[in-house]
C-alpha cells in the first residue's frame, strides 16, 4: 500500500491529482489524506483528514509514503523507517505562503531514505524503483546539544 499525506493545514491538489493518475496504472492500493476541502479522485482511497491513531497505523502499514515536504511527515518517516517521496509545495503555484518547503527539500535531500521528486514523472519513477531506501531515525549530534541547552535553561 502507498500512503499519500499532505498534512492538516492546506490542500495540495497538484500532488493528489498526480497520485490519482499514477494510481490508475498500479496494482497497489493508494490511501490518501488530502487536507481541507476534499475532492473526487477515482483511483485513491481518500479522505481530508485522519485521527492521529489511524494516521499512525496507516503510516506504519505503508510500503512507501508520498508527501509534501512537511517536517512532521519527514520525522514520521524517520520514526517509522519508511521510504519517503517528497514533493515540496511551491508558493508561486499558491501551494503555501512561501517557499520554505523548497528549502526543506534541499536541506533533507541528502538524508537517507528521503527522496525528493519535483513532478509526477519523478514520483512515478521512484514508486516503480526496486528496493527504495527507507529513512532512518538517526538524529545528528545537534539534537543532543539542543536538548542539553534546553535542559540547562530549565534548571
Amino acid at each position, binding site marked *: 500500500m502507498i500512503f499519500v499525506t499532505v498534512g492538516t493545514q492546506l490542500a495540495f491538489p497538484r500532488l493528489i491529482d498526480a497520485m490519482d493518475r499514477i494510481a490508475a496504472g498500479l496494482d497497489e492500493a493508494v490511501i490518501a489524506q488530502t487536507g481541507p476541502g476534499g475532492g473526487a479522485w477515482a483511483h485513491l482511497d481518500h479522505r481530508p483528514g485522519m485521527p492521529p491513531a489511524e494516521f499512525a497505523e496507516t503510516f506504519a502499514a505503508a510500503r512507501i509514503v508520498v508527501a509534501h515536504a512537511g517536517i512532521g511527515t519527514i520525522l514520521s518517516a524517520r520514526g517509522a523507517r519508511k521510504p519517503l517521496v517528497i514533493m515540496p509545495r511551491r508558493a508561486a503555484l499558491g501551494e503555501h505562503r512561501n517557499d520554505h518547503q523548497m528549502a526543506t527539500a534541499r536541506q533533507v535531500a541528502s538524508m537517507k531514505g528521503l527522496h525528493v521528486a519535483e513532478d509526477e514523472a519523478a514520483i512515478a519513477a521512484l514508486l516503480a524503483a526496486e528496493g527504495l531506501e527507507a529513512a532512518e531515525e538517526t*538524529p545528528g549530534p545537534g539534537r543532543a546539544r*539542543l536538548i542539553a541547552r*534546553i535542559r540547562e535553561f*530549565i534548571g
Partner: protein
Amino acid sequence: MTERRILAVASGGGHWQQLMLLRPAFEGGSVFYVTTLRGLAESHGAAPAGFAPDCNRNEPVAVLRTVAALLWRVLRFRPHVVISTGALPGVIALACGRLVGARTIWVDSVANAEEMSMSGRLARRFAHLWLSQWEHVAKAEGADYAGSVL
C-alpha cells in the same frame, strides 16, 4: 528545590513532533502538554495534556479563543517554564507565561531553513531563550542556536 512545572505547547503536525523529540529535556520536571489537535497527545503518550484551539493571525476571533484557553491553562498550572516549537498558539502561550513570571523558550521550527518563521519573530519579545534550529538563520536574525532535532 521544588519540581519545575513546565508547560509545553505546540500546534498539531510537525511542530508537535519536534516538541516530542525534545521531551528528554523535560526529565525531572512536571510537564503539562497542550496541542491543537484532539487525540494527538494521547497517541504519543504525552500526559497530562490539554487542548487549545488552533488559530492564525487572519482570524482575530480564533486568536481570542486561543488566548482564553491558554490563559486559563497558565493560571491553573502556574508554570515555571513555558516552551513552544510553534506556531502562533505557542507565541500566545509564551506571552501568557510571562504574565505569571515564567521563563520562556521558543524553538523555531526546523522547517524554517532560510528565515525565522513569522511566529518566531513575534515570539522574540516574549522569549527568554529564542532559538533557531539553523545556525545561518540564527546568525542573520540575532537568535541563539544550539542544534536541531534533525
